[in-house]
């Protein structure tokens, strides 16, 4: 992350240039981000977070109402970029592990993930054990 870039955004917050930047950021659509590379997404996330942290400073310093209301507005774009990052990461991991015998646990199907282990499945109450013990499966032999 560039310090120069950061300084640039901070210094232009007082000029009208920042308004353009703000509106551009606010119009984030997930569909635009789907194909992008990870570095681009991370950079966009950084920019958003930098802007977000600035808004808190503006709030504390008694900033304009437009700035303070932007705090609420910016949370969803940040979430969107993070969603795209995480979703593409998971998708790529699934592709990587596809067909392999051993997969990481969070890539298992949901049913398998939430199975009880063998010990827990076979646990029985004392009552049930007693019932089963009283009437076990009988083995008979026929006299020929």
């Amino acid at each position: 992350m560039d310090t120069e870039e950061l300084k640039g955004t901070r210094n232009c917050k007082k000029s009208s240039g920042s308004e353009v930047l703000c509106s551009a950021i606010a119009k984030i659509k997930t569909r635009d981000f789907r194909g992008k590379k990870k570095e681009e997404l991370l950079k966009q996330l950084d920019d958003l977070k930098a802007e977000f942290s600035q808004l808190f400073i503006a709030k504390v310093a008694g900033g304009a109402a437009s700035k303070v209301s932007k705090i609420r507005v910016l949370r969803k774009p940040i979430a969107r970029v993070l969603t795209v990052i995480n979703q593409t990461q998971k998708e790529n991991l699934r592709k990587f592990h596809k067909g392999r015998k051993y997969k990481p646990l969070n890539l298992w199907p949901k049913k398998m993930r939430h199975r009880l282990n063998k010990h827990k499945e076979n646990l029985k109450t004392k009552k049930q054990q007693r019932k089963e013990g009283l009437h076990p499966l009988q083995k008979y032999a026929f006299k020929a």
Partner: protein
Amino acid sequence: MSPTFQQPNTLRLRRQPKYPRKSAPRRNKFDHYAIIKFPLTTESAIKKFEDNNTLVLIVDVKVKRLSHKAMKQLCNIDIAKVNFLIRPFGEKKAYVRLAPDYNALDAANKIGII
């Protein structure tokens, strides 16, 4: 022969997992944006800018040290030392004393809190 049995040293192999249990490590949620929340602009905080060359910041409660990178997010300063306290409502306040060649008032102006 001693009366106590002590386990003999056996071969202990390192783990060679056939697959990672987690597919990917979790992203770091405690990045330097999460560390510093905002600076304070109360009267006593402003007094600190002028008299003691310190900035007063609200940081995340889990913060032990303020890294240079985290401070860079606010502006390019050198830190002499940091003192922390936890406010009654649970937030952590950091008194960041700047190095002598930096001026807290200038820094505060650059951040935008004056």
